């Protein structure tokens, strides 16, 4: 055993820069120090996960332990991204939690049918979002055992600095 607490990486796919800042702030406010990374749409998300395009540099795209997925995004939306991730044998073991402004019954049912591990309606207040982030962290990183995904990527990864959500992604 390596005597070191492994860093947890959470990847958030969100097209709205303001929402990215809110999520980043809520994670900071919740007092956890996990690595939080952002992608701006579904295309970007799949490129990140496949380490293609802008994410081809080794070590640049650590495999996330958890994906937070917005549903309504340009280029490739969250619904299609979820279906692609869950159909890919190398990616399907990563839990995907939908975090969206939608509260439609159809989106909720479809998310679970496609293998989503939770559907969270974005709270309207920042304090509400902080509470959600706290509960999310507590459940996924204190109660649950996650799969050791680096089975597929045996290179040990040095986690990069989390980009500021306002940075051009």
């Amino acid at each position, binding site marked *: 055993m390596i005597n070191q607490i492994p860093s947890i990486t959470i990847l958030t796919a969100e097209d709205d820069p303001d929402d990215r800042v809110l999520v980043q702030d809520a994670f900071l406010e919740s007092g956890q120090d996990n690595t939080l990374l952002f992608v701006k749409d579904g295309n970007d998300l799949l490129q990140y996960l496949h380490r293609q395009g802008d994410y081809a540099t080794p070590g640049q795209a650590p495999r996330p332990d958890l994906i937070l997925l917005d549903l309504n995004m340009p280029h490739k939306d969250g619904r299609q991204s979820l279906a692609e991730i869950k159909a890919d044998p190398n990616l399907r073991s990563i839990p995907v939690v939908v975090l969206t402004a939608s509260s439609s019954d159809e989106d909720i049912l479809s998310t679970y049918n496609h293998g989503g591990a*939770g559907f969270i*309606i974005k709270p309207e207040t920042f304090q509400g979002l902080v509470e959600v982030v706290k*509960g999310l962290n507590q459940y996924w990183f204190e109660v649950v*055992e996650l799969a050791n995904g680096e089975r597929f990527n045996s290179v040990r990864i040095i986690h990069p600095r989390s980009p500021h959500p306002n940075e051009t992604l």
Partner: protein
Amino acid sequence: MDKNLKPVIFLMADDDPDDRLLIKEAFQESLVSNSIYFVEDGVDLLDYLRWEGKFSNPADAPVPDLILLDLNMPRKDGREALAEIKSDPLLRYIPVVVLTTSKAEEDIMRSYDIGAASYITKPVTFDGLVEAIRGLGQYWVQIVRLPVKEKA
């Protein structure tokens, strides 16, 4: 701050009567929900979900919002039951959380691969179990919205 519109119904598949009792007490202790139903193995679980066999009266087998699944059970184990649930278009929407004593990396990876929503290793102490159930309840009852779907 319950995000769901009706009480959440849990269904636990576990072959060990002592474990079923502990889970039931942990649910009561953690105040998560009193709506927890039990089946004893994978065959019963699928019968319950499909209203077949001894569960042919739907009144005795309310549709669960979340399934808690032990892995090691006789007749049909948790791995088989999970794969069957996730390949059934009428059942696959129900989140399945594995709750087992196994900490084997292979069980964890395989459970996620075949569609488990989460994997929880049963804590060895009762207090630990209460904490785990409280965390489970907080996430699935208070933070996420579960699907609203009555079986056709």
